[in-house]
């Protein structure tokens, strides 16, 4: 439906000559973008409304109790341990692969990103079946670092590639030893990349359910799912959801503060000379321990465990249920991808073609919702349908709505970039050559934006393939995706039966990894 009206809006010609910041140009598109923005405010609005609805006394008894305090504290410990460790591992790996003559640097760079193809809860499945005693905070931090450090490695490695080596030469000419150059010049310039990657990991830690549930480590998110599974519309779950959202907002705020309002881009003009790689010489062998060890821990362990279970299960574990879950997953992924991309079109369009203050606000709404944990989005949708739209409860429509909310930012990124590559001048040139505005749009802009839109669909689809929490909470009864089927089998400790599902998720996610790698190379201008 959304898609149809979007297409209609495209047909409507509008004056391309007049573009002012105060007026609202591109009327119909604007209305659509505003609707999507409003929709994306739903989860936050829900939490606010529930808090108001139950009253302060109830909030106090539900939130200010030892159990919630414990959960907040354990989530804090998790963040405080995982983030610094991930930063250390990612920066060391990025430096080794980008700035030293370590043998096989390209291979190690690939292997550093590939763990992203393994869903976090598959990482912990692999570790739990290898080390059954893995439990609690230490286990949680260990698996989280392994599963999430690539989120830091990617931006840090890209930033290292972009740094102007002349700046480091300048520091050396001012009397700094190589070690001092790294800490006083290189590391500070990586701050933006480190902040961005850390925020991403911190948000994942807040919202991740499967990884921590598997090794019995309680966080705010696992507690909400537990509450939810015992009673669907419990004020307790909603209130912990409120606390979780508050944590998210606090993280976003902290990141803004730490990042500061700074520009670390290269100051000069022209292209930077590529940096020289430092010779490791006699440190080559010790240096190889880090990438090789990480590859074993992040890829070797999941692959060996998966392989072992698959071998033990033989052909018998691949049955009709497996293909059914695969089909459902692909169908949901594709539908969700197309829907989320269509929902992002109006905003992506406006932010490129008619930027303005109000537009930026609407855009922020599109982006913030992606940092909300899946549990909160699902909780909000379930509660709203149960109260007001009961016929929609546990339907595909609600599940897809949840996916759109969760993956809206992913859809925006690809679309924005590709629409920006089709400047309005091209459209005007087409009109000057006799095309109607509608024809110009179809033949020039949509044509140029198509690859970006396809990439957006793919990115969202791959996200949906590995989505567990929201799917568990929103899926119609009896509908199983790869992730939920995997989850119910592992909950029954049927590790052999779960293996094919994990293997298929990994296979489906591999292209995402390739895409991310290509993207980071491109942003570095290579």
């Amino acid at each position, binding site marked *: 439906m959304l898609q149809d009206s979007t297409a209609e809006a495209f047909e409507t010609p509008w004056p391309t000559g007049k573009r002012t910041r105060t007026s609202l140009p591109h009327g119909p598109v604007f209305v659509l973008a505003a609707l999507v923005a409003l929709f994306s405010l739903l989860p936050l609005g829900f939490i606010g409304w529930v808090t108001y609805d139950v009253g302060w006394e109830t909030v106090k008894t539900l939130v200010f109790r030892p159990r919630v305090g414990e959960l907040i504290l354990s989530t804090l410990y998790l963040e405080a341990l995982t983030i610094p460790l991930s930063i250390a591992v990612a920066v060391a790996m990025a430096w080794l692969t980008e700035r030293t003559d370590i043998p096989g640097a390209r291979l190690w760079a690939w292997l550093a990103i590939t763990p992203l193809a393994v869903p976090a809860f598959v990482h912990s499945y692999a570790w739990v079946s290898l080390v059954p005693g893995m439990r609690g905070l230490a286990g949680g931090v260990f698996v989280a670092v392994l599963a999430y450090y690539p989120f830091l490695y990617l931006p840090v490695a890209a930033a290292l590639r972009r740094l102007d080596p002349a700046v480091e030469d300048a520091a*050396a000419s001012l009397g700094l030893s190589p070690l001092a150059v790294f800490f006083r010049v290189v590391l500070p310039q990586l701050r933006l990349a480190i902040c961005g990657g850390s925020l991403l990991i911190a948000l994942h830690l807040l919202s991740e359910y499967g990884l921590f549930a598997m090794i019995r480590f309680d966080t705010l998110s696992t507690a909400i799912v537990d509450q939810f599974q015992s009673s669907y519309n419990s004020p307790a779950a909603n209130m912990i959801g409120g606390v979780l959202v508050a944590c998210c907002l606090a993280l976003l705020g902290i990141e803004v503060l730490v990042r500061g309002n700074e520009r670390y881009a290269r*100051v000069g003009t022209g292209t930077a000379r590529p940096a020289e790689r430092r010779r490791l010489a006699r440190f080559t062998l010790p240096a190889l321990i880090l990438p090789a060890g990480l590859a074993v821990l992040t890829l070797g362990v999941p692959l060996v465990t998966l392989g072992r279970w698959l071998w033990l299960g033989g052909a018998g574990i691949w049955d009709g249920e497996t293909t059914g879950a695969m089909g459902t997953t692909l169908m949901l992924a594709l539908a969700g991808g197309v829907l989320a991309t269509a929902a992002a079109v109006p905003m992506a369009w406006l932010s490129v073609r008619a930027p303005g203050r109000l537009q930026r606000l609407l855009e922020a709404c599109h982006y913030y919702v992606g940092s909300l944990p899946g549990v909160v989005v699902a909780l909000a949708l379930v509660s709203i349908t149960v109260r007001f739209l009961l016929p929609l409860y546990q339907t595909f429509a609600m599940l897809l709505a949840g996916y759109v909310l969760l993956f809206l930012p992913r859809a925006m990124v690809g679309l924005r970039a590709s629409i920006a590559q089709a400047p309005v001048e091209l459209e005007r040139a087409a009109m000057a050559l006799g095309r109607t505005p509608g024809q110009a749009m179809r033949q020039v802009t949509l044509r140029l934006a198509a690859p970006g839109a396809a990439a957006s669909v793919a990115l969202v689809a791959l996200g949906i393939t590995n989505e567990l929490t929201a799917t568990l909470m929103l899926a119609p009864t009896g509908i199983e995706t790869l992730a939920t089927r995997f989850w119910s089998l592992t909950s029954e400790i049927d590790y052999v039966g779960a293996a094919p599902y994990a293997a298929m998720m990994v296979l489906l996610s591999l292209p995402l990894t390739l895409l991310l790698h290509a993207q980071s190379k491109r942003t570095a201008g290579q």
Partner: protein
Amino acid sequence: MTLLKLENIGKRYGDVQALDGVSLSVEPASRTAVVGPSGSGKSTLLRIVAGFEFPDTGRVLFDGRLLADGPAGIPAHKRGIGIVFQDGALFPHLSVADNIAFGFERGAADRARRIADLLDMVELEAAMATRRPHQLSGGQQQRVALARALGRKPRLMLLDEPFSALDTGLRETMRKAVARVLENAGITAILVTHDQTEALSFADQVAVLRGGRLIQAGAPQTLYRQPRDRETALFLGDAVLLPAVAESGFADCALGRVPVDGDHAGKVEIMLRPEQIHIAAGNAPPREGMRVVDVQFGGAVATVAVRLPDASLPPILIRTSGFGLPAPGDTVRLTVAGEAHVFSPVNSLS
């Protein structure tokens, strides 16, 4: 006494011989320009002096200290040689003041005063200290980069094409300002550039590099008037090259009989700078066959193309005042001021 001495420097990258037996001496408190087309090895030479790279062969001596002997040597941070890069290479995460103080000793007591002095030295306002690099113009960034390098009180300052990213007008102002600052501080400078005008006007000594070899080094005027070969002649400015027959201080060429430098006899090639050739005024009798073929008026300077009697030679371009221009088709007489330069026979056309 020589401050910096490069002895037979060689450097190879894979198949490319970047530098091949380069030797150069730099006197204290002098200004040297290393000039050459891109890929001539001039930046490599500078990076070897700075210590970012080490030569395969040859030695670098600085102030009586051996800095590099083949691939072994002292690393950049222990050399105490200042450098200003093409884009300034300011630390983007630090303010102007922090950039300038970056090289100070830890806990320098008079930090604020030294920053103020250095800002004053490079003719920047003290209010700039709190700005960030991206808030500065290109010229200001270069001044800060210079102040930052001056903060270590180096005896030698390397300038790696520091003016090439600036606008033409600003480039000249900056060149003069930098020369002035370095001269006042008594600091020896080596400028690397591909701009021959910049090299000739900045330096006391110009060294021309080509294909990794040092072709010629000397005073700017010597190089401009007596280049070693025609490539160098053309690299340093426009030149008129003519075949001639030399004999006892004179040469006969298409322009008539002109005085030449050196003692040459027989068939030679001579070089004149266009500004040495003038169109003779009014009543001088024109020479047969010297015909104006094109006149381009360009305001203060006009360019006149004159065809020579020997039609196999290309027309000569003469730069002249925009007043009293001849018309195309006029026959004229050309006079030559000063001496023509004769390339030593090895390099001349046979």
